[in-house]
């Protein structure tokens, strides 16, 4: 199956300011792809370019099978859906009237499409409510229903949980999970790292340029050495002679009085060796496990590199 999105050397300048610089990536069909970055990193600009709202300064892209070009604008927009950060609903119209309007713009004639979109977001009972009377979370759901109307090949969600309370956020996450199960390709821009880690198959971190891309575990492995964290009841009398030279162990440091952070090449190889050595030395092990870096660690590592580079 061809990729849902192919982006090559995409660049966007606004006057002298470079908003997006030489960005290339692919998104597979059916993938939930996270696009992360700090404010002003170029995430929304990228979505707007791929959504045909802005024209790239240079570079190319194929969106839902069509080259990104002014001549293909209408056809691309027919195949995709974009939900901006604010859902942008007509507040004096009802939920149903909002969806009817957008169904008309997509020339959707099947009468069942609007009820199906409402059902997908659990809003069947609110169809006749004025959008102005809905909570922010419900409006976000209407925005999502609208984005599902045309059964898009690629669904762009720009900060879909921005400003939502935890309950509404969890609901939106549930809906995105539902989209994944339906095989919808989702391009999710967010600066909520927990959200990306939980929802996305792969993520890209953007800070004007593309800093990294891959599965969360790959990014962790790429950026950080693997480590074991060991806590013993009492400090080890001679940790160096015990740990140095064990299979798979490349280094260690004490992290507090009786916690040790051990750098390893392979956790599968090193963990049993460390456990055996500690037990053999008569140490009481309270815990032994792999120290996990979060996506947040990866993100902060990359962004602080950029901050440092800018300072220099």
């Amino acid at each position, binding site marked *: 199956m061809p990729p849902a999105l192919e982006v090559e050397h995409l660049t966007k300048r606004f006057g002298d300011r470079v908003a997006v610089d030489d960005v290339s990536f692919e998104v597979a069909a059916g993938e939930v792809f996270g696009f992360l970055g700090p404010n002003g990193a170029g995430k929304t600009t990228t979505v707007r370019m791929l959504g*045909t709202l802005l024209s790239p300064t240079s570079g190319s892209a194929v969106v839902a099978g069509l080259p990104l070009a002014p001549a293909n604008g209408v056809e691309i*927009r027919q195949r*995709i859906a974009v939900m*901006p950060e604010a859902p942008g609903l007509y507040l*004096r119209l009802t939920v149903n009237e909002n969806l009817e309007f957008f169904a*008309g713009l997509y020339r959707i004639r099947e009468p069942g499409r609007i009820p199906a979109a409402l059902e997908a977001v659990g809003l069947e009972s609110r169809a006749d409510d004025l959008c102005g009377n809905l909570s922010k979370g419900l409006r976000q759901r209407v925005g999502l229903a609208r984005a599902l109307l045309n059964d898009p090949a690629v669904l762009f969600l720009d900060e879909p949980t921005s400003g939502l309370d935890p309950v509404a956020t969890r609901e939106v996450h549930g809906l995105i999970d539902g989209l994944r199960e339906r095989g919808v390709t989702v391009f999710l821009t967010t600066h909520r790292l927990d959200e990306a880690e939980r929802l996305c198959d792969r993520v890209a971190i953007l800070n004007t340029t593309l800093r990294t891309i891959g599965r969360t575990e790959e990014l962790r492995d790429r950026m950080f050495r693997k480590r074991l964290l060991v806590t013993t009841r009492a400090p080890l009398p001679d940790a160096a002679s015990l740990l140095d030279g064990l299979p798979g162990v490349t280094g260690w440091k004490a992290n507090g009085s009786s916690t040790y952070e051990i750098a390893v090449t392979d956790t599968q190889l090193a963990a049993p060796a460390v456990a055996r050595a500690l037990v053999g030395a008569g140490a009481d092990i309270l815990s032994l496990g792999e120290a996990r870096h979060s996506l947040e660690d990866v993100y902060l590592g990359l962004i602080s590199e950029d901050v440092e580079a800018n300072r220099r």
Partner: protein
Amino acid sequence: MSLERIRAVVRKELRDFRRNRFLVATMAVLPLIFLISPTLTLLRIPSDSQASVVAHAVRASSLLLFVVPAVIPPIMAAYSVIGERDQGTLEPFLTTPIQSAELLLAKATAVFLPSVLVAYGIYFTFALVIRFGAAPAVSAAVWHAPQMLAQLVFTPLIATWAIWVGIAMSVRARDVRVAQQLATLASLPTIGVTTLLTLRVITPSVKLAVALAIGLLVIDFRAWRFVAKLFDRERLITGRPAQPS
């Protein structure tokens, strides 16, 4: 060009107007106030007045009625595109398959319908007041077939011109208030022509009326294409014009 998409936008706009009746009602307020004085003038003309006095007064009032379709739509037209941006609905709207020409035609139609309805409403209210309140000679001059035909023909043509000026401002201005202020200038050519006619600098004739009507029709059509060229999605979203790649 998709009629389905145009219909969807027009229906949405009219629904929005219906929920905001105050907006449409207030469109009529200024022109109505505007017409009080000439209407009273016509109502006060005694039945034994000279025909020339009646004709002059009726012509002055009737010409004023041509200004009504020029002053009603600009505010709404100027809001039509930039207003969407202000309420945060423009971006989702522009990410649908609608084409610029369709969007503009739909927006213009949505403003045209209530504007022309209100303008005709004002005209027929004026005509009915004269019919039942003014001297028979005055009434006969107002209910004169060519005069009424001119009103029926020019009202939509003038309204369309004013709408395109308003939408052009809406597409280019960065602020709703600026767009609305500038759009009101659309009435100036109409006021200019009617003033020249009232002052007899231009002599009204059937030939002139036909020429003006054809001229306006051409201008109205060209204005649509011109405004479609002004429509720049990138500028509307970012405030900066699209730069060639």
